[in-house]
């Protein structure tokens, strides 16, 4: 499993000639029970892969939506241990959808990389993205994850030159994550035309499928990016649905999953609607 689960999923997507829809949620947002309910509902709503954020008090690369999601999760008592417990619970009913953990270094440093990797593998996670660990600091973490056959996904960005992309690729497995805008999550909007050449650069550097995230909010934008990338990641727009449904006293799960359905549908239709790409 683990790395294999990501590889199997991308092989299947390639056979279907469609891009992956990758849904990001913050574990424990708005609380453990509803967070788990959302997580369990994501595959049926169209999420091909899932990124599960684990909250951190000082998320320096997040825009306001994910900052607020982290605060909601922390206020509900969410921890890294409970995040892993949530994934273990999800795995009881789903053995195929890859789960990528995403967060910041300190909760992992606090737990110890080796202990974290063992616990994450046991819970059924497949990979990890750490926003504030660049390639320069990645080796101890990458070694710990390798030992458990978990993928480390180092981020590529508009400021990464080709030499850095090669360094990033050396310690990245599963898929490559391209951050489409220089900035924090959920603020600037990604431009599919501008992203395309970067996706090609990233793919050339590592040969892995390339998913694009940071700045994709609407089905239209998701569809456009799905024509040029192997996957589309949406996060801030989903956690904003949670915020909105809480504010309006709606059922959180229904509202989030309905947003996931519309985004996933747009991604699925992208290459059907535009077969020449």
């Amino acid at each position: 499993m683990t790395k294999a689960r990501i590889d199997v999923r991308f092989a299947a997507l390639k056979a279907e000639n469609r891009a992956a829809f990758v849904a990001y949620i913050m574990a424990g947002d708005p609380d453990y029970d509803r967070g788990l309910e959302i997580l369990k509902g994501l595959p049926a709503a169209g999420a091909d892969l899932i990124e599960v954020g684990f909250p951190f008090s000082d998320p320096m690369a997040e825009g306001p939506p994910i900052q607020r999601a982290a605060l909601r999760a922390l206020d509900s008592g969410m921890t890294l241990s409970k995040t892993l417990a949530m994934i273990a619970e999800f795995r009881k009913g789903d053995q195929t959808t890859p789960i990528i953990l995403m967060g910041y270094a300190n909760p992992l440093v606090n737990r110890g990389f080796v202990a974290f990797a063992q616990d994450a593998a046991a819970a059924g996670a497949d990979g990890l993205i750490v926003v504030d660990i660049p390639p320069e600091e990645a080796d101890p973490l990458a070694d710990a994850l390798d030992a458990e056959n978990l993928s480390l996904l180092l981020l590529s960005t508009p400021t990464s030159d080709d030499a850095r992309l090669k360094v990033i690729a050396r310690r990245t497995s599963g898929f490559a994550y391209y951050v489409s805008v220089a900035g924090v999550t959920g603020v600037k909007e990604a431009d599919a035309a501008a992203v395309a050449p970067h996706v090609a650069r990233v793919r050339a550097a590592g040969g892995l499928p390339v998913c694009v995230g940071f700045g994709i909010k609407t089905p239209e934008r998701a569809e456009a990016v799905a024509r040029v990338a192997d996957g589309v990641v949406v996060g801030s727009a989903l956690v904003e649905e949670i915020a909105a449904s809480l504010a309006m006293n709606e059922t959180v799960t229904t509202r989030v999953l309905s947003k996931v359905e519309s985004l996933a549908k747009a991604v699925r239709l992208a290459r059907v609607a535009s077969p020449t790409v």
Partner: protein
Amino acid sequence: MNAPSAKPNDYAAYPDANGRFGDYGGRYVPETLMPLVHELDAAYSAAKADPAFQAELSGLLTHYVGRPSPLYLAERLTEHFGGAKIYLKREELNHTGSHKINNCIGQILLARRMGKTRIIAETGAGQHGVASATVCAKYGLPCVVYMGAVDVERQKPNVFRMNLLGARVEAVTSGSATLKDAMNEALRDWVTNVHDTYYLIGTAAGMHPYPAMVRDFQSVIGLETKAQVMEAEGRLPDAVVACVGGGSNAIGMFHPFLNDESVKLIGVEAAGEGMETGRHAAAINGGRPGVLHGNMTYLLQDPEGQITEAHSISAGLDYPGIGPEHSWLHDVGRATYLTATDLESLDAFKLLAELEGILPAIESAHAIARLGDVARDVGKDGIVVLNLSGRGDKDVATVAAHLGMAI
């Protein structure tokens, strides 16, 4: 992890090429910033080795900042404590009223050299914000200062000063709305405007090369002190004392003395309402190693690795971390880190005002609060230098409030 007690042959040789002081430091930043961090490292190394850069810096320190700052023998304070002879290194007499300007002059020259056209900074007490706004005004560069909303409220005079100097002050309401949140917001700005923006970090923390660079620019404090004590006393001091938040004034004082092992290096952290209450800002005395704002260092954090809020009467010390070099100096035993509470610092504030006619910054007052202990420990034949890092005019409203007085 390395053996924490491993004692280096040359304390001044750090950080290594990866920005490490032992286990501490490093470059824990998002990939978007990483190329710029390398560019900054290269630009700083080149500037440091360039005599023209050093000459320009030196000229500005003399004619704009007013250096060297005096080393003043505090006779009544010496008599009061009844121990070692006490000297004050008068950094509060610098232009803008604190040591912060030393670093800002250096970094603004570097920013210009790198062709950056927009400056951002974070500030706690507002001293670094004022110093940043000052150098930006001098060079005609736009300046945005991120400041926690709580600090904006308790340091209004400095907010007004920054505005007068043409800077925009952004009140940060996220998190605890203090210095750490201001730094988060400054980092978010930097990652968004990476192409034209220079981040002027005010303390010896953050990602490499900042801890080393800020230390170098602040080392003028210790270098002058060394020469001034030699001239006055014909020998080195027995101890130097400084307050520590992020730790820029302390490392600036300590660094030139690192290999003079007869000189005790004493930092004083903010104990807030008391170490036992948990409401303090003492990263070394009350925290453990972790990663925040680009570096591995001692941090206040909960058992799950969430950063906890710092508490201090002093906005400038109200930060849950400390510069990585201090973490290392603590682990290897070269420096000692004590604490002082809010109340002890208020008493020290009044003491210096009454005995020497000097209002210290409430930050510096933390160091004064431990000065008697250090002076008595060193003994009557000894010499102690205290780094008086800032002046206290900005703090009179805070002090009045704690004394139950209205101004």
